[in-house]
């Protein structure tokens, strides 16, 4: 039997980065907000302490903090003609669970999209002509311009205390920052992190080639910092246990450190942990989600929570799942191109890397922050001329270890066996003398890459799994080939004792090796309800009181790690809800 609860002003589904931001902004506006989080209430002072927080096996290898695939997963097929199989063990990406979501154990690279990324289709058409974009590349503009979003990027950066150096301060180009970025009104809240040996080698090599290196914009605070919520971040310890781990120094910005202490102290907010949302109760005629049904995973009891406003912040896959199972909007059909829910699922083109070895240099890879690399953006987005190249987009290119934890990080020169006497000798010899230069490439939407419901496999609640129809396509392979060439040039310019052959992403998409948790699309934002699921304020075209958060709203993926844009759009949407929607609940954009 389902117990129906008293109506609340707003319910937030998923209390990760976006759920926390929305809950905070709505309670500040005077609303009563209920936060439903499927996982446990993890708090750093108890969960993330020395010594157990440094457990490589538990956190990095056995995946303690991620979605439990025994209960919920997704399936994959490479093309619509194949049968999808479930991802039985997480690998390629690692959706978070528990309070704070993946925000509790991310790495902290905190980017803004390039102004041209914001208006990708228009930009490419203007620069390369009307027929430049192939039919199957279903890219669109993000319907919020860089300039409109700038104050919200700024706000998220101030929430996180991002460390970095501006490369474009109100139009003035600054050496040492990312000279390709859009103009920012303010400098980063904190100075860049301490330099690493690998980063220094990268910096010198890139300068010698005429490129423009800069330190990663990092939500690992370089100094003690107090944000506008009155929450204090500690200074980064360079512990080399960042991505996949919680932070014992409270230096990595997370919902748990930056917002939740204030939110949990506010009587207008009620957190319900162990509350797994099963379905949305949709009234199509009224264009509203009337309530949210969830299971208390401690008792098995089912509840119905009515709410005036529903915020969906359950990460890409569950955002799409909850909309599809409720029948909100039209599911995407790749054959006709009709329908928008599930459309334009994208990822990123990684797997391009080269490892460099220096006999005479001590790298100390274990002294590292999560976002600690030195990068170039010279070959990203449309920062270089694509005339005649046969592809669009590019990649950020980065060097600098995030860790030296030896279960996974122990580079050996090419040709070394994977075990035995020679492997041991090489591992001992090179462990402290090597690092990898990597790249993260844009992934532009393709007609046959999308999300829908799996016809066969089900989760523990009996719901169909989300099915990914996804593979890399021509644009991705060409992009990877081009970036591989750049990697080789950069590596050579470092003059290493030995280097590997730059690997270039080839073959089908694999779910086995970790690539990134930068899944995007499925509930994309746009100006036309036929080709988008939410309007520019992230409001559903089909349910006025439903707002969808997170990277599922990206029309396609840029090369950047997503959370800078995710956080900025969350604040942007919250502002629209508070200043417009609360005054006159209804569509904020008329299609």
């Amino acid at each position, binding site marked *: 039997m389902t117990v129906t609860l008293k109506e609340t002003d707003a319910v937030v589904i998923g209390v990760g980065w976006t759920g926390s931001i929305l809950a905070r902004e709505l309670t500040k506006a005077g609303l009563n907000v209920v936060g439903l989080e499927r996982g446990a209430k993890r708090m750093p002072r108890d969960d993330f302490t020395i*010594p157990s927080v440094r*457990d490589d096996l538990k956190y990095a290898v056995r995946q303690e903090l991620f979605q439990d695939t025994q209960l919920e997963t997704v399936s994959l097929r*490479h093309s619509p003609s194949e049968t999808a199989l479930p991802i039985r063990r997480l690998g390629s990406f690692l959706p978070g669970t528990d309070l704070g979501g993946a925000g509790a154990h991310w790495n902290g690279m905190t980017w803004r999209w390039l102004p041209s990324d914001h208006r990708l289709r228009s930009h490419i058409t203007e620069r390369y002509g009307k027929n430049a974009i192939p039919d199957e590349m279903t890219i669109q503009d993000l319907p919020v311009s860089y300039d409109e979003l700038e104050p919200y990027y700024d706000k998220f950066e101030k929430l996180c205390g991002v460390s970095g150096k501006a490369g474009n301060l109100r139009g003035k180009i600054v050496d040492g920052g990312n000279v390709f970025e859009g103009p920012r009104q303010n400098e980063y809240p904190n100075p860049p992190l301490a330099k690493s040996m690998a980063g220094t080698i990268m910096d010198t090599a890139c300068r010698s080639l005429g490129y423009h290196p800069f330190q990663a914009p990092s939500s690992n605070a370089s100094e003690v910092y107090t944000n506008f919520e009155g929450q204090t971040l500690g200074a980064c310890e360079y*512990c080399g246990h960042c991505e996949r781990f919680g932070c014992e120094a409270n230096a990595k910005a997370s919902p748990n450190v930056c917002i939740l202490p204030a939110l949990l102290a506010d009587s207008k907010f009620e957190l319900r942990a162990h509350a797994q949302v099963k379905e949305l109760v949709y009234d199509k005629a009224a264009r509203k989600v009337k309530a949210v049904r969830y299971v208390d995973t401690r008792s098995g009891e089912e509840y119905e929570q009515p709410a005036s406003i529903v915020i969906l912040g359950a990460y890409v896959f569950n955002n799409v799942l909850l909309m599809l199972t409720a029948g909100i909007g039209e599911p995407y059909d790749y054959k006709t191109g009709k329908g928008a829910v599930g459309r334009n699922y994208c990822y990123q083109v990684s797997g391009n890397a080269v490892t460099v070895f220096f006999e005479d240099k001590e790298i100390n890879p274990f002294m590292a922050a999560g976002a600690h690399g030195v990068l170039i953006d010279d070959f990203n987005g449309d920062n270089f001329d694509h005339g005649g190249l046969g592809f669009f987009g590019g990649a950020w290119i980065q060097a600098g270890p995030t860790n030296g934890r030896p279960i996974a990080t122990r580079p050996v020169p090419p040709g070394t066996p*994977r075990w*035995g006497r020679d492997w*041991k000798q090489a591992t*001992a010899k090179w462990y*402290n003398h090597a690092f990898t230069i990597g790249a993260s490439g844009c992934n532009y939407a393709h007609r046959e890459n999308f999300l829908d419901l799996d016809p066969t496999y089900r989760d523990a609640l009996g719901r169909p799994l989300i099915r990914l129809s996804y593979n890399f396509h021509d644009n991705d392979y060409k992009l990877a080939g081009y970036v591989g060439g750049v990697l080789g040039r950069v590596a050579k310019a470092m003059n290493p004792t030995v280097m590997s052959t730059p690997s270039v992403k080839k073959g089908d998409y694999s779910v086995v090796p970790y690539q990134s948790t930068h899944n995007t699309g499925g509930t994309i934002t746009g100006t036309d309800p036929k080709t988008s699921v939410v309007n520019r304020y992230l409001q559903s075209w089909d349910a006025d009181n439903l707002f969808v958060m997170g990277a599922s709203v990206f029309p396609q993926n840029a090369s950047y790690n997503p959370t800078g844009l995710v956080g900025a759009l969350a604040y942007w949407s919250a502002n629209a809800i508070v200043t417009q929607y609360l005054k006159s609940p209804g569509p904020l954009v008329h299609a």
Partner: protein
Amino acid sequence: MADDNIPIRRRNFLLGAGTAVAASLTPPAAEAQTAPTAPGDAEPLLTLTPTEHAFFVAAADTLIPADNLSPSGSQCGVAAFIDRQLAGAYGSGARLYRDGPFLKGKPELGYQLPLNPREFFRAGIAAANEWSRKTYGKDFDRLADADREAALQAMESGKAEFSGFSSRMFFNALLDISMEGFFADPIYGGNRDMAAWKMVGYPGLPATYREDIKKYFGKKYDKPPRSIADFS
């Protein structure tokens, strides 16, 4: 059949053999490396059968042979680590989606078998020993060093034809769990005396380098490693 030996005898045999091999391979200068703090092979087993344990000991000592850099894999506790891992949550399929139908898929779709890791290694070791008996006339752990190496190479390349089992998949899982045992924090039973961390120069805990990242810029870090146990 090589299978019919009495478990106790097999383990005693191995304990002796392992020590002798390690001693003969270790250059005198690195004597200290051959003295693990705990006598690994005498530890009670949680889940492995004596045959399986003998297999893991032999495999660990071939993958990670004793030399001047560290004692052998099993001397560092790799087999004890594997026993504990397979006896616990991981071994019984934690975080593994196990609903059917189970269909054969391309390698890019990842693991698709209904077996949990405990069952996987049970079936895999049975298949490996069967193949070893067919090829060399003996179980894998009874092979001479050179044959063990050749056998693992055949599995790694997939040339070893196990009946009903992919030898390459088995080898990759074996290599992964052995390296986990060698390099994980010693609290899990492997990496005894932090031998693997000493071998590469990984300092372990507490990993608070705010001052050291400047002080040791470009310099070798010279502090001895510490484990979770040292802070508990």
